[in-house]
């Protein structure tokens, strides 16, 4: 780890004023310190934001829920309103990491998790995300855990968060504060595909800080499921995960949301796949058809071809589970 200066501002504007090149905000630190110890990141200044008043969970005017950026993952997962109205979010959070990490990790920080690509973590190897222009070692290397959708020749990394898959399905908004004031970023626009700038995971501007995540009023509490498939029963990143939300009406699907994790540089959604479900009976054949649409452009690498079929089956399973309420 490289040495860094440390400041702990007491107010938001003070924190924003400290931001600048070489500075980073720290809250839970579970991924930032991890990467600093590996020399992947070398900030010169850490701005400790844990003193900021961003710990509330409160209803919004339109019936949604505003979650402060510093709310821990554990606290969020067990919050009564979340359990009652957004059970998908709770389940997704609890499918990730460990109780210890969930006690530390913050809501805002979870959105900023970096990929678990082996090459990104190992500074002895090339990686465009870590060192733009150095090349992508994963593309022709070990890529069993890598992307099948939306990848580029420069980067085939996936986003590792479970919580974000749920937030993508729920169509949350990311509330950010910056030098230009506050703005709300629809979740689908928050994370980026790698393209030729894989070092940029998201669309935050320099100096901007996530202050909250806003959930819309609808939580699909009756018909939701989060399915995570990984290489061991717990405490591992997803090979594929699926957040499925359904709204049923008279035995037919009125609305459907499918977000897939572990397959792309961001939680993957496909409106065509979701639209295809509208008006269909909630049966496996409909789910298969939607999965086929969602995966139509999937591109396998040398070792991750299985993810295409796995994702297809996970989508079908998650949608099936969602009908029953999502408790398998």
């Amino acid at each position, binding site marked *: 780890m490289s040495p860094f200066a440390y400041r702990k501002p007491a107010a938001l504007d003070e924190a924003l004023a400290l931001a600048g090149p070489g500075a980073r905000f720290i809250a839970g630190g579970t991924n930032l310190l991890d990467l600093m110890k590996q020399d992947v990141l070398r900030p010169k200044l850490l701005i400790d934001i844990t003193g900021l008043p961003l710990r509330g969970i409160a209803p919004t005017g339109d019936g949604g829920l505003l979650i402060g950026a510093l709310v821990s993952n554990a606290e969020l997962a067990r919050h009564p309103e979340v359990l009652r109205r957004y059970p998908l979010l709770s389940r997704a959070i609890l499918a990730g990491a460990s109780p210890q990490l969930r006690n530390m990790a913050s809501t805002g920080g979870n959105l900023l998790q970096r990929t678990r690509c082996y090459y990104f973590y190992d500074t*002895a*190897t090339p990686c465009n995300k870590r060192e733009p222009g150095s090349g992508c*070692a994963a593309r022709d290397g*070990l890529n069993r855990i890598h992307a099948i959708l939306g990848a580029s020749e420069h980067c085939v990394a996936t986003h590792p968060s479970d919580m974000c898959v749920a937030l993508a399905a729920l169509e949350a908004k990311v509330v950010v504060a910056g030098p230009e004031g506050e703005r709300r970023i629809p979740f689908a626009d928050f994370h980026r595909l790698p393209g030729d700038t894989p070092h940029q995971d998201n669309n935050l501007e320099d100096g901007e800080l996530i202050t909250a995540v806003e959930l819309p009023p609808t939580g699909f509490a009756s018909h939701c499921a989060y399915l995570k498939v990984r290489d*061991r029963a717990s*405490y*591992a*990143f997803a*090979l594929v995960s699926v957040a499925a939300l359904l709204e049923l009406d008279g035995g037919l699907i009125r609305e459907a949301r499918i977000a897939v994790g572990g397959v792309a540089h961001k939680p993957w959604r496909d409106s065509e796949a979701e639209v295809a479900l509208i008006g269909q009976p909630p049966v496996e054949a409909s789910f298969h058809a939607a999965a086929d649409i969602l995966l139509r452009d999937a591109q396998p690498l040398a070792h991750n071809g299985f993810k295409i079929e796995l994702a297809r089956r*996970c989508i079908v399973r998650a949608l099936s589970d969602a009908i029953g309420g999502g408790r398998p």
Partner: protein
Amino acid sequence: MTVVRSPLGQPLDRVDGVSKVTGQARYAAEFTEPGLLHGCVLGSRIARGRILAIDAEDAMDVAGVHLVLSHRNRPRMAADDESYEDADAAEGSPFRPLYDERILYSGQPVALVVADTPELARYAASLVHVEYEEEAHETDLCGLLEHAHAAPAKLPPARGDADAALAGSALCIEVEYLSPVEHHNPLEPHASTVLVQPDGSLLIHDKTQGTQNSQSYICQVFGLDPKRVRVCAAFVGGAFGSGLRPQYQLTLAVMAALKLGRSVRVALSRPQMFTFGYRPRTVQRLRLGAAANGRLQGLSHLAIGQTSRFEDFTEHVVEWSGMLYQCDNVHLDYRLVPLDVHTPLDMRAPGAALGLYALECAMDELACAVAIDPLQLRLLNYADANQNEGKPFSSKALRDCYRQGAERFGWSRRPLEPRSLRDGHELIGWGMAGGVWEALQMPASAKASLGGDGILRVSSATTDIGTGTYTAMTQVAAAEFGLPVERVAFRLGDSSLPTAPLQGGSATVSSVGTAVQQACVALKSKLFDIARQRPGSAFAGLTLEQVCFAEGRLSRRDDPDQAIELSDLIGSGAPLEARVDAKPDPRREAFSSATHSAVFVEVRVDEALGRVRVSRVVSAVAAGRVVNPKTTRSQILGGVVWGIGMALQEETLIDHRLGRYMNHDLAEYHVPVHADIGEIEVLFVEEEDLVVNALGSKGVGEIGIVGVAAAVANAVYHATGRRVRELPITLDKLL
């Protein structure tokens, strides 16, 4: 008169339990002193080539950095291979840390940065710039199988004519199994703390399975007087073989201490735990020929393993195939492919974990071909003698393992057809396998002493890597002396104590336990002599067999009232001491001695998603007399957990273009977590062995894992109808 229950066979709580649950037990990196310096290792990013330049200027400019050590400025080291050979060395030319500019594998230490704090050392290490000249490397075993050479291993001679027997068999199975590189990953990373004593001698706390192995290695390599180097390992946070050879952190820490004349600690990071020994990747080819009734006619087993360019690592992979079943036509072969990697290293049940994975999967395939129950096939081919050696077993209760294990598991209800059992999304499968491990005994020494305080102090240089040595040896000594365990203190983990072999191969109870027992007998004999020679002694003219040691007293067997307190015999003088060098009983030579097991496994496989869960395991073990059923059961449980990891999860992934392990952390190198482990039941079958050693006890450190991966793979087949012949059985292989 109260009957004293012998502590042998009792489920005694670990005597070191309190120190471990309160955080008081100190491991190698947890000793300190004012002014202790910290070393951080810098590893090579290339797999083969040489170092052209090391620029340490930026690192040395950091205040608090004392040294950037490399081959350029290291202290003098021995120049001959022999000096680097340790008690577990493989054949060849051992790796020499920081010796010269040659790079032999990716991750090889190229520099050590020594600073006032661990944080400074790590930061400064990131400022050291190394320039390499890269050469082409090869790390892929499977691409180089034709280049394999015969392993320097003494295999049992071929018997009969395997090829002819296979050709003439009614049924023949020919199969290939693959296993990946696995790393030990004890939870405590390797570390060495070298404390320079006021007289200049070295007190070293090392993570090792052999304090004397580390001591002699250091003395040989640096030309030091063994009297001035003491290596301790009071607690070892797991090892599983990783501590059988002195690892490079020890060499580097000593180098820095010698160079600076100061105390230095070097603790490896988790990724660095992937930069020395490991279980080698193997390709195994088996041919089994059987008569229509399933009786084995011929067997051929070839294993090809990877090794380094500098050493030929060998383990017992194929031997088991010549001894577990009765078969008169057997051909065993073992070959190695040298690669640009570090030398492999013994890892829990070295060789057997691999060989029996292949053999027991092949037996399952044969059972399917014959269309009989796999347990039935094994009973049909039961070996009463070890045909490899042409010797009877000193004891072998494997039949009881099969029977009792099957009964407890409910094996008789198993449908023969795969894909017969289902529960919702899940297919259920039952598989089994047998296991075997040699019951070794090595020479070992121990010392016993009794002082006026009535405490029996026993010691040996052995270690306790979690196996329960402290506890078992306390029980052996207490039993022999008729003392309650509270009055016995056992010391270990110190090279200055009586000689002990490396702690490995499940041989500690057998080797050190025998020495402890004999030391106690010798001490009893001395006490008896004193008692006998006292004027008017009630013991005059008696032999040791005619007296009894119990509750700290010596008494006549024929007249228990004639007794004397042992403390009276010693008085207030110096403690009475006895030291012995124990050797395996020559009676062993006429026999083959082995521990056996039968493992029964239930798996549940999500049919659509390929997820495999091991829901139930019964492991029945025949290991002679069990010294402590509580800690021994734990050993087997641990072995089963290892077997589950081996079957389903563990694999160190190497990028062959870079020649580098890439999942070198505990997030991506998967070992089982709590949620992976279902019910595990352990049975110990009765097995009396009067030959193996006076305790009648065989070791259990390895046998728990042997066969488990095969049983899981066989259960997966039974559940799904799919044979996955490549470990680990990750879900992608079942989609």
